């Protein structure tokens, strides 16, 4: 996926609720690339160059770690915000 495609994908998946701005997207992508979590492939057409991003093996691992972390966080927040009522 390339940058614009990612932003549109996030928008459609979240039914327009999440707008990934260029200012948030590109610095992050470049950082992830420098950390070796994503790899890029450049395709030229005319004056334009399109950079396609994909996850590396390390990136895949990082995603599952982060997902787990995030799920735990959501669970913990639920426990705090909606404590189980005593019977």
């Amino acid at each position, binding site marked *: 996926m*390339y*940058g*614009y*495609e990612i*932003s549109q994908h996030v928008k459609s998946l979240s039914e327009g609720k999440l707008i990934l701005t*260029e*200012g948030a997207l*590109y*610095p*992050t992508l*470049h*950082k992830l690339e*420098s950390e070796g979590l994503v790899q890029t492939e*450049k395709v030229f057409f*005319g*004056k*334009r*160059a*399109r*950079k396609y991003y994909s996850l590396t093996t390390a990136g895949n691992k990082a995603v599952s770690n982060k997902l787990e972390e995030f799920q735990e966080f959501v669970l913990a927040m639920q426990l705090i915000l909606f404590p189980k009522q005593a019977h």
Partner: protein
Amino acid sequence: MSAELNHQQVSFIESFIETKGLEYEPLQEEILDHICCMIETQMNQGVTFHQASKQVFDHFRKDELKELQDQTIQLLNQKKWTMKKITLLVFGLMLTVVTITWAINLDPPKVSPLGENYKITSGYGMRFHPILKKKKRHVGVDLKAPIGTPVLSTADGVIEKIEDSPNTYGKYIIIKHDDAYQTLYAQLSEIKVEVGQKVKVGETIGLSGNSGMSTAPHLHYEVIKDGKRVDPEQYFGP
């Protein structure tokens, strides 16, 4: 059929990006494609290139592209920055350790040479000398002490000097504590240490007496800081 910008239109967008101060090449290419895509999406919905480009250009605030570039570069440099922070931290820690070591090595006298129960019979400063019968600066303090009272080292240190001057100090000891401080104990009856011996604070170094130019049994005590006699009472503890 989906719209695709022609060479001229792409160049037009390229020059817009350049005027916005985006100079970092890897980003330049990407933003160019991004903006082209935005315009093409609008053109697919029937908007003209002119309208679509105007709308997209308005979408980016004045310095937005420049900020995007700065943020990217900052993020990419963050590792180096973290290293700098760690280096600074290590340096700070080392400095603290050195300071603490230095402070520990500095060992000013901190107790009275007779322990907790002492009575000053003659303080530091100008006084009328009881034997010489004239005003003289008293460079130490006199503490009331029956002959044979144990005299204690007032800080950790090394015995620097042991002497007997019958006309002045009588038997006396000088202890060197650190680079700044020395203490002197005079009018002793007995000396229990030797030159070069290490002593701890509170250790008995001798017994009080009446051995020098003295009218009554007492301990004459001096604190010497950087070679100058200072008021010992400042160093008698809290």
